[in-house]
């Protein structure tokens, strides 16, 4: 049988409450492990150290905005291929366009969803974004 790979997900978000909720909700699925970063700079550092399989990214962040991070990820050849899901409360068309043009795979507005909805949505996108085990 294929051995189950554990997927590493980097979550860059400055609200500790959101961090906790998603860690609890997503790690219920034992194949996901959440790596937390609480500001933009930490996000970039953790991404380089941990090489996550997927990045969940807030846009308004201390020290470095999510937009800047998207640019940094794109320019770093080790990180460019990692899918990024934007998870934010910025909802203007301009912001969505900007994030997508910088390479975000999906754009979710936090306030639009309840807890179950948002976690199941994230899980679905994660499934779509992360390729299944290569040795399957």
């Amino acid at each position, binding site marked *: 049988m294929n051995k189950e790979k554990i997927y590493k997900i980097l979550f860059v978000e400055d609200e500790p409450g959101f961090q906790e*909720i998603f860690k609890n909700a997503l790690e219920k699925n034992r194949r996901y492990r959440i790596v937390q970063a609480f500001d933009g700079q930490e996000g970039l550092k953790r991404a380089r150290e941990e090489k996550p399989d997927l990045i969940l990214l807030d846009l308004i962040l201390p020290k470095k905005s999510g937009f800047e991070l998207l640019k940094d990820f794109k320019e770093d050849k080790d990180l460019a291929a990692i899918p990024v899901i934007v998870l934010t409360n910025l909802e203007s068309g301009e912001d969505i366009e900007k994030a997508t043009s910088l390479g975000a795979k999906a754009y979710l507005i936090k306030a639009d969803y309840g807890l179950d909805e948002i976690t199941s949505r994230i899980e679905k996108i994660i499934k779509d974004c992360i390729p299944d085990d290569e040795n399957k």
Partner: protein
Amino acid sequence: MLYTPNFRKIFNLLNLKKQCDQYRVGLWGCPQFLFVIMGVVIVISIIGTNIAVRRYAEPEISALVVMGVTAILFAIGHAVVSSFERVAEDSLAKSEFISIVSHELRNPLTSLRWQFDLLKRDYFNLSEKQRQEALEIIGNDSKRMNEVVSDMLAVHRVEEKAFKLNPEFFSLVDLTGIVAKNYEKQAQKNGVKIEISVQENLPPVFADKKKIQMVIEHLIDNALKYGRQKQTVRVEIEKDGKKTRWSVSDQGVGILKKDAEKIFQKFFRARNAFWHQIEGIGLGLYIARQIIEKSGGEINFKSRENKGSTFWFTI
């Protein structure tokens, strides 16, 4: 079809008052109006120079006239540039506003909803500690939202033309004591001590007590937020000529030099505020300045990066 010029549109373009009202600036801060004035000055000076040159043959006088006109045009040009800057700043403040509202208002709102969902869904599976945590987050979120909303309302009020102060005689010392007591818990949480030192025999001040309380609250709140842990926030009240001078000092992160002149602007948040993850929407000092200036006092600060800041006002 016959082309009929849109007279209303042309008239609107000529209607300077309406144009300037759009920018919400006074006539003398409005680029369109200043351009018209500049035009008038140029026309007058051309005619004037012509007449002057004909009347006085001396080159000194014409040189003087030219210099004078240049100086006037330079001054108006300067006013035009700075008025444009102000208008641009205003639109910057608007986009700041959207970003701040989404972060400071929608985030707690979302968090509130999700914590509630979590409680509703998993109440019996959560440990006592997790339940307590969720409830505390809910409490903090609603408190934070309330603060943001009341700051926004306060801004709206101080900007209204009908903004009125209801002055009365009261003791600034007693008021400071009450406010400091309200902030005791928050201070204790950070291990900060609030010290109040008062000059003897201070006369009561004559001002709007509620509004001054708001100013003191904002200044003490800032000192606690931007001060470091386990330090002292010092409030001093003393006589300053006929007025009373109130000041609060922290030993915190200080204010960057390049931020200094914008610190009292609406929606301005210091660069290092984000760095140190300090919550806020950039309205407190703006409100404080409006209130103090409308009360006939003065408000300002001095600060050194990483050493701390002192904010003071007179009343």
